[in-house]
């Protein structure tokens, strides 16, 4: 009788620990993974092709939907590519707003990551804690753009509008009234900046809470220490970026090395791992949240003191103010042309990258002198990370596959595009 040595196992695409629609074909020897073959593309929406049939500005909303837990960072990559081709630069206040919201986004993303990563490895509580903080940041998104997630807030030449002077408050209801209502609205008495400041003062204690739950936790360490080790050489070979690269001990951060927006004007540190295992990457991301908090604080201070325009005055690219459009013939023409035809980008190509929470998010844009891109290529960090799946899980147990998926921080919106 033939002896069966390995067998093939199907993991996903409908598996709660697969973080979306990942289908893994695992070649198993007992409980040890011999080979992993990820099948992706189940969420492929051809974003890049859709963008080719739309004026430039109409695709900003698609960018939110790529990596749907770090929305504004994706927008940032896209508008930066356009700005590069047009040769325009956003006003300094818009740059600070972008920096602040990029960091808010980083915290949003890392909270989502720590919540689900913890949940996958059996730490239930953290998920609820992380979502409690996420809610505040979502409210910032909503206050500034009107949408909790898919903001479409960044525009070529700046941001859609200035920060609001008022933070929306909770209304009295059957369940929220009296003292409870007052508590819930305590941070919301002032402007958005006041709200964010309250958050930044509170947040370090919250991260400390997460640390008490996980960092010295015996089970957590058993599940993450020495799992999915990536050497610095292999990390570079596989095209790793962001925390995946820094976890392996390479101090590379686009915010420091190729600064954009206002990153060269704020003070922050870049945490780096030592061994390149899941635990190191966990520590790197936890520290990144604290650093992001620092950056947000500095941005809040700056934004308080320095009012100014948040959009370029060039009305060939950015729409004129509503009032001007009503009164001025030229304003009306600009408005009409921008919202029917859009603007034309001269022939050329550009690649713009930002340090998204997951790694380098790049946009390669080929313009052909029309109002639509000829080709848009989105370089998603998760795509490169997931391609190293086989290498990272080979020889590990089945349960470690879940830890590795978690540590990669994959989101299928960006991988499948």
């Amino acid at each position, binding site marked *: 009788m033939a002896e069966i040595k390995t067998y093939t196992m199907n993991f996903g695409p409908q598996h709660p620990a697969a973080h979306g629609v990942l289908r893994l074909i695992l070649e198993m020897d007992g409980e040890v993974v011999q080979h992993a073959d990820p099948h992706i593309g189940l969420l492929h929406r051809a974003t890049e092709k859709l963008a080719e049939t739309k004026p430039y500005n109409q695709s900003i909303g698609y960018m939110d939907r790529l990596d749907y837990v770090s929305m504004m960072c994706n927008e940032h990559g896209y508008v930066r590519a356009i700005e*590069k081709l047009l040769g325009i630069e956003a006003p300094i206040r818009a740059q600070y707003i972008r920096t602040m919201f990029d960091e808010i986004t980083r915290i949003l993303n890392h909270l989502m990551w720590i919540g689900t990563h913890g949940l996958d490895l059996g730490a239930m509580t953290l998920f609820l804690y992380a979502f409690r903080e996420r809610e505040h940041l979502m409210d910032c998104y909503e206050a500034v753009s009107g949408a909790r997630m898919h903001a479409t807030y960044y525009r070529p030449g700046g941001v859609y509008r200035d920060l609001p002077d008022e933070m929306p408050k909770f209304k009295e209801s059957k369940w929220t009234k009296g003292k409870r209502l007052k508590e819930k609205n305590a941070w919301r008495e002032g402007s958005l900046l006041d709200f964010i400041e309250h958050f930044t003062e509170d947040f370090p204690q919250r991260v400390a809470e997460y640390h008490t739950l996980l960092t010295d936790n015996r089970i957590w360490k058993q599940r993450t220490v020495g799992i999915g080790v990536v050497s610095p050489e292999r990390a570079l*070979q*596989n095209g790793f970026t962001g925390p995946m690269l820094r976890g392996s001990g390479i101090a590379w951060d686009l915010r420091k090395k190729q600064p954009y927006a206002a990153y060269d004007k704020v003070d922050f540190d870049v945490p780096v791992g030592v061994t390149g295992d899941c635990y190191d990457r966990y520590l790197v991301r936890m520290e990144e949240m604290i650093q992001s908090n620092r950056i947000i604080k500095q941005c809040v201070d700056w934004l308080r003191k320095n009012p100014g325009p948040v959009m370029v005055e060039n009305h060939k690219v950015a729409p004129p103010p509503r009032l001007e459009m009503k009164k001025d013939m030229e304003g009306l023409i600009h408005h009409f042309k921008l919202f029917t035809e859009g603007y034309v980008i001269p022939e*050329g190509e550009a690649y713009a990258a930002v340090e998204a929470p997951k790694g*380098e998010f790049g946009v390669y844009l080929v313009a*052909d002198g*029309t109002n639509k891109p*000829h080709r848009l*290529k989105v370089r998603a960090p998760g795509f490169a990370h997931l391609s190293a799946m086989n290498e990272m899980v080979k020889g590990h147990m089945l349960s470690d596959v879940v830890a590795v998926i978690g540590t990669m921080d994959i989101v299928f919106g960006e991988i*499948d595009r």
Partner: protein
Amino acid sequence: MNKPQTTLARQLQDHFGDAIQSVSTACHETTCVIGRDHWLDVCRELRDHPDFHFEQLIDLCGVDKLGFGLSEWKTEEATFTGFSRAVEKLGPGRFTWEERPREKVKNRFVVVVHLLSLKHNRRLRLKCFAPDEGLLIVPSLVEIWNGANWFEREAFDLFGIIFKGHPDLRRILTDYGFVGHPFRKDFPLIGNVEVIYDEKAGRVVYQPVSIKPRVNVPKTKRRDSRYLVKGQETC
């Protein structure tokens, strides 16, 4: 060949000479076009030589040049006849498979690679044209940068570019059993097939696509005074 403007462009030209076809700089980015015969040698040298040291392949993608710079809207003379008559039934998103554009374009498919050097903190864009006749074969970079694996699979899937020497060239993003290369400019935006649940058969089946192509904003080329700012460097 253009006059090299950056240190990197100069270095490339001095080091490789005739092995590279052209070097150009725009938007502070250096682009280097390499022939298929020298593709692997130059790339290996770019990775290993201390002057270049591009240890990371950041991105690899295909680009289809068909319909480049095409204007759908006759803006000059059609203004008086109205929008519907001014737009031709062409252009991205506005045709079905039967109506697809069939003209021949020279150097239609190109593989574009973005490299990053951590040591020198700089980027480089490489281009390699696929042959116009026969199969679109370009040598694979997987040996040099392992991270190219999935990127090449993607370019194969979406554009049909075949990477010679790739260890596992399968489709990656499209459905199992998909026919065609969807990101080619002659592939309709609406696709060719759609899936529905067939009650009688009790399973999901494929059928010809039932939606109509519909793109509201025409692709318009303009070179008027609005976009020609004097003294401003266009990329």
